[in-house]
Every structure is written in structure tokens, then in C-alpha cells.
């Protein structure tokens, strides 16, 4: 790009103006109050709702209220702030508030719930057995996806258990994908047995073999 003639550094003041970011008065600093913030979640202004969602992070008891609000919140930016606040609150109540969202028809909401849940390994652990036994295979697939990213030492064993026992091939396939990354030797036997469980599904044999290779088996 050729330099633009005529604007010399001596003319910098023509274009550049020094800004002022002096501290604003105390009236600009938000005041947190649980009742007022909860009320502000219903504000028609998305900016107000974001502020409320952010500041509710100072009130762990607001977790269930925020989880409930997620389902009806129309603005993506507010939802994003709510998720961050829920991760900060990080409590068993938040996990319980999010689990029903795994059954939502709204895929963005389901993924949002997973996004938060995978940040709370200790709080999620008591629910893993129930989630993996859920009659809805979609819930089990979401759970497997979450476990694949959950920083929990039992995650590889939970996935290996899915591969050994889950009756649905898609749930097993999701677990195979997870094991390819986080699996250990204990997954090799169930992976080897998987093809025999689903002989009518050829791809599962290749997926399992690839996962075994990645884990370090023969």
C-alpha cells in the first residue's frame, strides 16, 4: 500500500486526539443486591440482564435461578454471561439446575449445559451413574461427550464401562471417540469386544481399532 501523501507526523494532532479515561464517580460502580439483581434479569435491556447475570456471581444461592432463566433468555450475549457466572458459582445446586436442560429441544441450550457441567467434575460425579443409565440415548450421548472432556480421573473408566455395556451403538461410538483421547489400558478389553456386540455395524470395528492404537495397544 503506498504511503498517503500530505499527512506528516507534524499533523498527527489533526487526526489523533488524546482520550481521557479518568476514573468515573462512585455512581458508575455497580451496586450488588440479590433481590434487585434477580429482578434485573427480567429487564428488557440485554445490557442490564448481562450486568445482573454477572453480578449474581456474588450470590451462590442465585445458581438455580440463573439455570432456570437460561431456558427463556433470548440473547446469546446474556446466555454467555450466565454460563460464566454458573461456572464461577460451581455448586451441586447448579449441576441439579442444569441437568434438566440435557433434555431440552434446543440444541444450543443442551450444549450450554454440557459446557458448564464439564467445568465441575466433583459436583457432576454423583450424577454420572444415573445419567449413563438414562433411558434416553441422546442424554447418554451428551453425557459421554461431557465425560470425554471432564477433568476427572474416573472419566476413562466411565467411558470404558459405556463401551462394555451400553446397548445403543451411537452411545458406544461416542465413548470410543472419547477413549481414543483419554482412554487407558482398562479400555482395551471392552474395545476389543465391541465389534462382536455390534456385528451389523462395520464402522464400529474400525473406530475401536483406531482407539486401541491410540491408547497404545496392539
Amino acid at each position, binding site marked *: 500500500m503506498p504511503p498517503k501523501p500530505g499527512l506528516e507526523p507534524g499533523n*498527527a494532532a489533526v487526526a*489523533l486526539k*488524546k482520550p481521557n479515561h479518568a476514573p468515573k464517580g462512585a455512581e458508575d*460502580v455497580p451496586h450488588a443486591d440479590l433481590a434487585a439483581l434477580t429482578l434485573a434479569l427480567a429487564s428488557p435491556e440485554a445490557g442490564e440482564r448481562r450486568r445482573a447475570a*454477572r453480578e449474581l456471581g456474588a450470590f451462590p444461592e442465585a445458581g438455580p435461578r440463573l439455570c432456570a432463566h437460561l431456558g427463556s433468555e433470548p440473547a446469546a450475549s446474556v446466555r454467555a454471561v450466565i454460563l460464566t457466572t454458573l461456572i464461577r458459582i460451581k455448586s451441586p445446586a447448579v449441576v441439579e439446575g442444569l441437568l434438566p436442560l440435557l433434555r431440552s429441544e434446543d440444541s444450543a441450550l443442551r450444549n450450554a449445559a454440557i459446557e458448564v457441567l464439564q467445568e465441575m467434575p466433583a459436583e457432576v460425579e454423583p450424577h454420572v451413574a444415573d445419567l449413563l443409565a438414562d433411558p434416553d440415548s441422546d442424554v447418554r450421548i451428551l453425557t459421554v461427550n461431557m465425560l470425554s472432556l471432564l477433568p476427572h480421573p474416573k472419566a476413562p473408566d466411565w467411558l470404558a464401562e459405556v463401551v462394555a455395556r451400553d446397548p445403543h451403538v451411537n452411545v458406544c461410538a461416542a465413548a470410543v471417540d472419547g477413549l481414543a483421547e483419554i482412554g487407558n489400558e482398562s479400555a482395551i478389553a471392552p474395545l476389543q469386544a465391541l465389534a462382536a456386540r455390534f456385528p451389523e455395524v462395520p464402522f464400529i470395528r474400525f473406530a475401536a481399532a483406531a482407539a486401541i492404537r491410540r491408547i*497404545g495397544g496392539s
Partner: protein
Amino acid sequence: MQPNHAFAQTAPAIQITEDEYEKFYEYFYRRTGISFSGRKEYFVEKRLLERIAKTGSDSFKAYFTLLRFQPSGEELQHLVNLMTVNETYFFREDYQFDALVRGILPEITRTRRPGGTLRIWSMPCSTGEEPYSIAIQILEYWSRADEFAIEITGSDIDSRVLADARKGIYGNRSLQRLSPELRKKYFRRLGDDQFEIHEELRGSIEFSIANLSDPIHMHRYRAMDVIFCRNLLIYFDDTSRRSAVEALYECLTPGGFICLGHSESMSRMSSMFLPRKFGDTIVYQRPVEQD
């Protein structure tokens, strides 16, 4: 499976196999957005071995388990800090400055009246190379520069680097990417390896302290049209990164843009922004409509 790397000098017992490298690359990319090409293998292995030794792990496998399952994510952060190079100089990643004058500013000003204010924020600005580069780029290459009042702010959490930024004195290494013409035009030679940026330019840029994690600090910065926040968020843990991105969102005017470092991807951090492509670079826009 054959190990392909032996580290006789530093840790003779530890070897990392091809498959282990693959697993590590995939994991690291997924968590941080940083990908390593084959050329960086030595760079990666040196740092991995350093952390393996520091954490007392007896194998790559043990270390990788720690890395993945540590609830605090502390070890991942140590590794990120090691794997990222913090270096600053004039016109670093200059394709974004090209995008600024060729695409971003023209788009922002399409509906603005001449005489209005444009606000550009370099955060973190370190010792000032980035905000000065932005100023030079605009003065040199944006034909509408003199139609608007352009406010450029450089901020950092470190008051010592801000003091250096205000002084505006740099060595040859910082100026390596500047043409002799631009050096002559915008700098005064003080010594063999000392160049002082033009006084008027220095006086046109505000340098101020800012902490992305402090809501009161961040409240001072509003209605920004463009934010350069490059190679900072990568150093944050996941939760702090989310909060920081949300704070930056509030600092931008609707329709404003944020430029991240080349190894950073907003889509891995937040869904609040729209990716936009200008030339070869992707920047992120706060949606125009009040969402």
C-alpha cells in the same frame, strides 16, 4: 510403536512416541487453539520435558494424565505460558493493521459523520509498540484519517511498561520491521541503538493502567470501536478468559471489532462475537443490534 525422540541430554529415561505427540497436539489444540507444525517439534519437546521434570512425572503418559485430569488446570496454564512467546515489536502481525485501514475502519465509518470520534484500544500495550504502530498505520495508510478525531489508548496492567511506553524510546530490534522512511519520519535518533518516537505522536496517545479482571477498572473503557487484545487471553485460565472476553464485549460499541493474536480463536472462548474476515485475517465483531 517406535519412539522417535530420545532425550539423552535432559531425561534419558523419557521418550515420547509419535502417537503420544499426536494425542498431545490434539488435546492442546482443543484446549488452547494453538497448533504446532512439525517444524516446532523441538520447541514442543523441550518444553514438555521441562514440565515432565518439574512435575516429577516418570513418563509422558503420567504427565499427560496430570495435564488432562487436574481439576485446577494449573499445569495446563504452566504449559501454555511456556509454549507461547511473548515478544513485542513495531508492526508485529501487521496483517491486522492492514485489515484495520482496508476493512475495519472503512466499515465503521461508513455511517459516521466526519468530525466524529473513533476509539481504538490496545490492551495490553506493553511498552507501546502496538498503539504507536496503529497510529502510524492510520496516519500513513488511511485516507480518511483527518476526517475523524481518532482516540488511541494503550493500556496494560503493568505500570512499569506503561512508563516505558510514555517515554517512547526503542532499540533497533523493536524497529526491525519499519522502513528507513518511516524510521526517519516518526523517530529521532538518540544513539546507536536508541530511537525516540516523535513527540507529537507520543503526546497523542493515552497510556493508562487497566486490569481486565477488575470490573471497576474496565468501567472506564467504553464505546471502543476497535480493540486490539493480542496474545493476552491465552495466558488466562478458562473461567478468567470467559470473564475477560465478556468484559471486552462491554467495552466495545455495538458493531465494534476485536482483534486477537494469531493463535487465539474467539470461537473457543465465547459465542458472543461474530467472526469477520478482512483479507487474510479473522477478527471478531460485537453484533450491531443490541442483543
